């Protein structure tokens, strides 16, 4: 115990003395939390739409006005021919072309039907799909408006219509940031925990102080605890600061029990620090530790359900996500923060993450040798 006291004292002295490190531990993640949620936004907006109006009628004007007033589209050029619109797509100035054929208004009124043509630049598949979807929705809306104007509804509508009423649970305004902020916070805590811990130990290898430690009677678990505890505390602090920012800046207050979040975090940090520890036992230089950490963190981030839903990944990728501690904490964060989930809802994830913590740290301890 006394040994541990001296080890902790030394670690904290070193951490607080290193102002650059302190800044990158505390300020950098908070900056990221302030900036990233605005960028990691999947709402498709500002789609450049090139309308090729071959009709120049009152209806085609009305349709265009309705589309641009929706807020999702912005016009790319005016009075375009189809050829010109195509050029705009090729030069990336337009995302979607809507072609209104000549006689649009006349056919609609006389024959009660008319076809429109939509072409989308599908390099960014999501943007094309969602954009065409929006456009389709607006045109359908336009369609029912003019039907109301022209057709006197009979007493019984001959064509049955299914009307849909949607209600958005847990995030009623469908604010993407509410969804992203808790996940991004988990990502930041993970990166800090694993990388700082790995780099710190490898630094001692590089400058040779670890050899001095190895000839002292310090036990393996003393040394490892002496490294884990400070970064565990730092992880807790960063997480708390993150919650404060989420509240102040994004108005996100966890619906569920905060104590439950911290209990999960406590175990989760052990798993993450275990990864750092393990990386440090396999690296001899900080450069190696850095590249190893990057490799794992990239995979962890992209396969965590943070940016893309795990359910839509292929089967083999879903299997990988089951071995990714990040995916458990991100889903737990979203559940507790947005839905107010309780212990029984997250107990399975807690169990899995505990197993990770035990296995990773056990492996690291076995692999850390005082004697070669």
């Amino acid at each position, binding site marked *: 115990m006394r040994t541990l*006291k001296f080890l902790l004292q030394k670690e904290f002295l*070193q951490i607080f003395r290193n102002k650059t490190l302190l800044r990158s531990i505390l300020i950098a993640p908070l900056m990221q939390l302030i900036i990233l949620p605005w960028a990691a936004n999947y709402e498709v907006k500002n789609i450049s739409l090139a309308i090729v109006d071959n009709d120049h009628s009152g209806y085609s004007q009305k349709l265009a006005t309705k589309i641009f007033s929706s807020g999702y589209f912005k016009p790319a050029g005016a009075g375009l021919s189809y050829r010109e619109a195509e050029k705009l797509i090729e030069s990336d100035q337009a995302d979607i072309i809507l072609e209104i054929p000549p006689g649009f208004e006349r056919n609609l009124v006389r024959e009660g039907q008319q076809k429109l043509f939509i072409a989308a630049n599908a390099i960014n598949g999501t943007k094309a799909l969602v954009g065409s979807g929006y456009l389709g929705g607006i045109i359908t809306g336009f369609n029912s408006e003019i039907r109301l104007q022209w057709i006197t509804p009979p007493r019984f509508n001959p064509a049955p219509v299914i009307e849909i009423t949607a209600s958005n649970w847990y995030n009623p305004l469908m604010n993407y940031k509410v969804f992203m902020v808790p996940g991004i916070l988990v990502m930041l805590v993970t990166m800090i925990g694993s990388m700082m811990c790995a780099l710190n130990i490898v630094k001692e290898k590089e400058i040779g*102080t670890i050899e*001095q430690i190895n000839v*002292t*009677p310090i036990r393996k678990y003393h040394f490892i605890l002496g490294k884990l505890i400070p970064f565990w505390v730092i992880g807790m602090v960063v997480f708390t600061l993150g919650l404060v920012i989420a509240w102040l800046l994004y108005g996100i207050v966890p619906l569920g029990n905060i104590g439950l979040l911290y209990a999960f975090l406590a175990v989760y940090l052990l798993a993450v620090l275990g990864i750092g520890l393990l990386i440090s036992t396999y690296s001899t230089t900080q450069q190696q530790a850095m590249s190893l950490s990057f490799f794992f963190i990239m995979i962890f981030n992209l396969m965590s359900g943070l940016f893309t839903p795990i359910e839509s990944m292929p089967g083999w990728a879903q299997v990988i996500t089951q071995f990714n501690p990040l995916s458990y904490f991100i889903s737990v964060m979203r559940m507790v923060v947005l839905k107010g989930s309780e212990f029984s809802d997250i107990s399975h994830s807690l169990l899995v993450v505990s197993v990770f913590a035990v296995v990773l740290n056990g492996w690291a301890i076995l692999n850390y040798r005082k004697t*070669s």
Partner: protein
Amino acid sequence: MSEPVIKTEKLTKRFGDFIAADALSFDVMPGEIFGFLGANGAGKTTAMRMLCGLSKPTSGEATVAGYDVYRETDLIKKNIGYMSQKFSLYEDLTVVENIRFYAGIYGLTDKAIREKSEALLDQLGMTHEAKKLVSELPLGWKQKLSFSVAVIHQPKVVFLDEPTGGVDPVTRRQFWDLIYDASDKGMTVFVTTHYMDEAEYCNRVSIMVDGRIDALDSPQNLKKQFSVHSMDEVFYQLARGAKRTAD
């Protein structure tokens, strides 16, 4: 005469085909200053690392302070001090913080730590530098501090791996005063060096060539044996026969 404090019998370390230390057998007596000489790559550091419990021998026997180097490395570590060629204090801690840390992990009480720190700073004449970061000290001071920290728990044996590399002659002389002082207090000093004037300061000297110990005696006897006037010449005669290239 008392029991040897270091005793080795055919102590060997192989790395694959390479025999870094080849059947080393020697005894070191308590309070002795034992010089361990050899060209770069001769196997000095390997031998020393085995004795400190940092590296497992491939074969042979050895005890340090009465404990076995295979099974009792934890007990050995309680009874030795070690100063490696790489500077091993924490540069981002102050002088007193380093002293307190190492004294603490060797299990000294708070009272003992306070007294030791004061006495040590006094002896090194570093009272005014106590609160300075170690990185701000000149190399010679760092080395003296490093030695004092390595013996702060009064170990039975202290291992010094090229402790005076790159240090000016005056400071080296002062460093050896510290070594004599430790030896007077009953500590055994096991030291590797490339400076032949330092070899003369040792009670006995062993010279390693290509992983083997080719000579072992007091400096006087070695000079007589090779009929030369200085340790320099003894060293040349032996090291010239080395087949291994320096690392």
